[in-house]
């Protein structure tokens, strides 16, 4: 225990003296939490639309103003013909073309039926997809409005219609920040844990001080604990700043679930992530190597974590892969406890799996860490 005290003392001194590391540990996560959730928004806005109106009627005008008034679309051009409009798409000035045929108003009133033509620039798949849905929805709405105006509704509707009304549970205003902030926080804690831990140990290898440690009677577990404990504590502090300082104060996200449960999970999670850092450090000889290896894992973990793309919509094999990324579980648990108020029984499996990760990653790292060559 006495040896550990000296190791910790030394480690904290070095961490707090490192003028490059401290800002990395505290300022960078805060900045990212302030910027990322605002930018990483799934809603598609500012879709440029070019309208080709061959009808020039009151009704076509009404439709156009309804589309623009929705707030999702911006009128890029009011074109005289389809070819002109297509130029806009080719030159990336427009994402959508709406063509209103001649006789739109007349046919709508007389024949009760009319067709519209929409052309979509599908290079940005998400924009095209969501924009198309929005546009269809607006036109359907418009259609309903027209009907109410023109057709005398019988007492009982001849065509039964089903309308759906949905309620958003756990995030009533569908605020993306509620969804993103806990996820991004989970990500930041992971990166700090794995990177810092790996780089710190590899630095001792590079400088040669680890050689000195290895000729002393320090036990493997003492050395490893001396590295894990400081970064574990830093992880907890950064997480708390993110959760309360940024999540609560800035974004107004009040954790609904049990905080003790959340921190218990964080504790286990940090051990697992630090184990990953430790494992990387046993394979890397230089900080550059450690960075490259860590970056490779982080890239996969982040993209497959379900933070930016829902796991449910991934192909089957990818779904299986996401189960091997510890971040996936932490993001799930974060969202469950913070937004939904889940209980221990709900996250029991998550706990077991994370303990498994912690034991296997650290076990592997300890096995691979050698005092002698």
């Amino acid at each position, binding site marked *: 225990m006495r040896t550990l005290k000296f190791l910790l*003392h030394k480690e904290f*001194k*070095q961490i707090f003296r490192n003028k490059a590391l401290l800002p990395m540990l505290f300022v960078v996560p805060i900045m990212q939490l302030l910027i990322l959730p605002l930018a990483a928004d799934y809603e598609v806005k500012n879709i440029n639309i070019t309208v080709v109106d061959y009808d020039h009627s009151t009704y076509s005008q009404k439709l156009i103003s309804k589309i623009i008034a929705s707030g999702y679309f911006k009128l890029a051009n009011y074109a005289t013909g389809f070819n002109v409009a297509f130029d806009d798409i080719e030159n990336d000035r427009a994402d959508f073309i709406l063509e209103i045929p001649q006789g739109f108003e007349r046919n709508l009133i007389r024949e009760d039926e009319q067709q519209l033509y929409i052309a979509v620039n599908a290079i940005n798949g998400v924009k095209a997809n969501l924009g198309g849905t929005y546009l269809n929805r607006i036109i359907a709405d418009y259609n309903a409005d027209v009907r109410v105006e023109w057709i005398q509704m019988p007492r009982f509707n001849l065509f039964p219609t089903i309308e759906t009304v949905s309620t958003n549970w756990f995030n009533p205003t569908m605020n993306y920040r509620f969804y993103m902030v806990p996820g991004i926080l989970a990500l930041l804690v992971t990166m700090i844990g794995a990177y810092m831990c790996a780089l710190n140990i590899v630095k001792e290898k590079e400088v040669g001080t680890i*050689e*000195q440690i290895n*000729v*002393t009677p320090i036990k493997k577990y003492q050395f490893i604990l001396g590295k894990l404990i400081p970064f574990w504590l830093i992880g907890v502090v950064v997480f708390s700043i993110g959760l309360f300082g940024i999540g609560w104060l800035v974004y107004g996200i009040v954790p609904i679930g049990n905080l003790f449960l959340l921190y218990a999970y964080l504790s286990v999670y940090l051990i697992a992530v630090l184990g990953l850092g430790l494992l990387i450090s046993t394979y890397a000889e230089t900080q550059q190597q450690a960075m490259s290896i860590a970056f490779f894992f982080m890239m996969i973990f982040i993209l497959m974590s379900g933070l930016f793309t829902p796991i449910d919509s991934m192909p089957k094999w990818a779904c299986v892969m996401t189960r091997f990324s510890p971040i996936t579980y932490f993001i799930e648990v974060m969202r469950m406890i913070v937004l939904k108020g889940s209980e221990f029984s709900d996250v029991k499996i998550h706990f077991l799996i994370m303990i498994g990760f912690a034991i296997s990653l650290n076990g592997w790292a300890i096995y691979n860490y050698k005092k002698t*060559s």
Partner: protein
Amino acid sequence: MDTVIHTVNLTKRFGDFIAANEITFDVYQGEIFGFLGANGAGKTTAMRMLCGLSTPSSGTATIAGFDIYKETEKIKKNIGYMSQKFSLYEDLTVLENIRFIGGIYGLSDKQIKEKSGQLVETLGMKGEAKKMVGALPLGWKQKLAFSVAILHEPKIVFLDEPTGGVDPVTRRQFWDLIYEAAGNGITVFVTTHYMDEAEYCNRISMMVDGEIKALDTPAKLKQQYSAISMDEVFYELARGAKRSE
């Protein structure tokens, strides 16, 4: 005289390459044992085996009476080591480094305090005690590293080219420290490229291509090779080397 290092046919192979080939020698308590050889002769490899940093491929050895295979942790308590690379923490102060190393060797707070005071005093570093080690000149760093390596009063101290890149005056002072340590009963095992330093040793061994080619006192070696200086002895022996750099 007590034997503190005893090796028999100690060998280290890296694949096909034999870095140290069947090394057999004894080192006695309190002596300054010079370990000489050209670059790449296998000195560092041999020393790393003796310190328990590297497991031998074959052969046997006991260090301070402990087996090199089974009792490495006990060996580590009884030796000090100063590597080629400077291995104190540059971002800790002189006193913090002493405290850290003392602490992990199990010295009590009182002992650490006493020893730090003493050490800073003898090295004439009172003014620098609270300075970061990284800011010290190389010669001072090396003297500090040596003093820290023998802080826990080990039986043997291993020095791997401790005076490389150090000016002659500081080298002299460094050797004074070595003599003082030897006088206190600490066996000094030192590698060097400076032949004047070889003359300071009680006995020296010459390593060529991973093997020990000669082992005796400097005077007897000079006689044996009818040379006037250790320089000549070194050339005579190292000339036959097939491995270089």
